[in-house]
């Protein structure tokens, strides 16, 4: 049986974005809290790729940061290889486990130290984890990693600002691989890359997974990329996981009305004249999320119950979905028109 590598249960993270105390007193406004992640549960098996998709601001990066321990959860549990890693104290206790995770950040500009040469940036995890000893050997390994991501060993002597956006993204990928992680959190790893380098990186990630059994939590807004790399896909909306399913199932018969909307918005490269259906309505503010199902103001299937009651996650073959329409059996069949059901 497959072994669960990461398990996340009821994960929450709130941010206080209140105006300063004095302003609150003067204009009588209350505290304001962003429910960035609001009760998310999923699990990832060893050697598989689980992807998160969803509109900008729905909490994907926050989930990623919680998983690798850059934020402490406001609630819920993170279990990695059976060890509880929710909270700073628990993480210290299992430092060895924590160090088996690495993260590729969404923003390659902010995540590379501008004053360090690239060689030192990439060598840092190797030195920190004492993976290789000796300057020459480390240097050789750094050169190897640079070549692996399509840069040159000679690039080790340069500073991050001497590289283009996509080249910097590749440096952060090389750094993440340097730590020989077993679990890699990839937050938009290829969004800054042109499609040919993207193909090289995605192929490389697939090879590493096949050879070393790496497990990935993958975040991308590019649904074609997600379709290509994932075993399972989770769809987030306003801090909640509204649907997850095996990739083939999710793209073949999406259930949640929001998932369907996302699939309809995929850009059209064939120029076949299909006008892409823009996602209707505005993304509501996570500070004041709508009552009940937070998708109801934009949902064509919303009824009175949807406005009142938060839908619970319902297990369906190959996944789970949180929607009253599914539970009540009033979900229309999926047109399946734009996306050919995978096989």
């Amino acid at each position, binding site marked *: 049986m497959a072994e669960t590598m990461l398990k996340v249960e009821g994960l929450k993270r709130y941010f206080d974005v209140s105006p300063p105390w004095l302003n609150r007193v003067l204009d009588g406004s209350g505290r304001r809290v962003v429910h960035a992640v609001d009760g998310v549960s999923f699990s990832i098996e060893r050697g598989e790729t689980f992807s998160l998709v969803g509109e*900008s601001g729905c909490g994907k990066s926050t989930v990623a940061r919680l998983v690798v321990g850059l934020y402490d959860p406001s609630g819920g549990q993170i279990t990695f290889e059976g060890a509880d890693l929710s909270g700073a104290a628990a993480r210290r206790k299992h430092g060895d486990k924590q160090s088996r995770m690495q993260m590729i950040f969404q923003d390659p500009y902010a995540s590379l130290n501008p004053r360090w040469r690239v060689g030192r940036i990439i060598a840092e995890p190797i030195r920190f984890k004492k993976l290789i000893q000796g300057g020459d050997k480390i240097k050789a390994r750094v050169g190897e990693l640079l070549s692996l991501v399509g840069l040159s060993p000679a690039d080790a002597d340069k500073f991050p600002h001497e590289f283009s956006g996509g080249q910097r993204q590749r440096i952060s990928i090389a750094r993440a691989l340097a730590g020989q992680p077993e679990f890699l959190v990839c937050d938009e790893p290829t969004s800054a890359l042109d499609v040919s380098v993207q193909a090289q990186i995605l192929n490389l990630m697939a090879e590493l997974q096949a050879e070393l059994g790496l497990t990935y939590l993958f975040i991308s807004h590019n649904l074609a990329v997600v379709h290509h790399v994932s075993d399972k896909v989770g769809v987030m909306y306003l801090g909640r996981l509204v649907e997850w399913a095996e990739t083939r199932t999710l793209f073949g018969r999406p259930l949640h009305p929001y998932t369907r909307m996302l699939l309809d918005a995929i850009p059209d490269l064939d120029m076949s004249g299909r006008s892409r259906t823009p996602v209707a309505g505005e993304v509501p503010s996570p500070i004041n999320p709508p009552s009940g199902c937070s998708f109801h103001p934009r949902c064509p299937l919303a009824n009175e119950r949807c406005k009142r009651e938060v839908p619970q996650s319902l297990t369906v073959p190959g996944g789970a979905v949180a929607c009253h329409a599914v539970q009540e059996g009033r979900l229309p069949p999926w047109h399946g028109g734009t996306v050919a059901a995978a096989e």
Partner: protein
Amino acid sequence: MAEPVLEVKNLRVEFPTRRGTLVAVDDVSFSIAPGEVLGVVGESGAGKSMTGSAVIGLLTPPGRVAAGEIRLMGRRIDKLPYGEMRKIRGRQIGAIFQDPLTSLNPLYRIGDQLVETILTHLPMTKAEARARAIGLLKEVGIPGAEDRIDHYPHQFSGGMRQRVVIALALCCNPTLIIADEPTTALDVSIQAQIITLLKRLCAEHGCSVMLVTHDMGVIAETADRVAVMYAGRIAEIGPVRDVIKHAHHPYTRGLMGAIPTISEREGRLNQIDGAMPRLNAIPRGCAFNPRCPEVFDRCRVDRPDLMRAGGSLAACWKAEEAVNG
């Protein structure tokens, strides 16, 4: 034909380094007509951002325009003093950078930055400027704009920050927008919204756009023409349909083949093997020749310039052959 909004002729951008001079942009020429969207795609590191930075006069030293001309509405702007260029930048050219953090000061609330930019360039009162700022934030799809205007950049998600930058670029109704990967950090739905917004601006205000992106879907939907860059040069340029459907340059064909699609799931994506040459080691002849599946003798000796190929221009000896029969 109407006078182009932007005209770039034989642009060359150099970086003097300890190890010699690097040429990041080499003899690049193109123009953008009023209301036109020119898409720019190409290999990472090919010089797309450098070309954009040169146009808005924001090359980071030691990078410099070593040769060529840049004209905005017929007026030469590549030699303007800093102060004058700055005025043009806020008012006539709006810039959306690849890296949202360079355009947003982390110490200021986003509202202050928008209001300040508006007040610098437009005759408005502070209250009017704030109202306009809120309107713009709504237009780029920031939910709860009235509240969010008083937040700091780090309180936004990656995609939301990018939308704030877009609002900042649009705030003075510029005639030309240089958008460097404006939608890379955005999901498809917001992307559709931003693209629709950019298109509407083009239609309503006759505003032109230079749109750098890796996303061929976005190019297919938005651009009128597209330029494909490789190793500092334009490899192919032409109407978007021709370039996507009937690419003449082998590099363009490789790019198109590498795009993952949803209708078929291949085990492995097609990739163009090898890497783009380093700027100090560009091979003789055609820069693409070590990776080109169609390379022949001449490619290793002579460098092809852009030549007519169907409705487009392509820098490839094969394209020349095809035309001459």
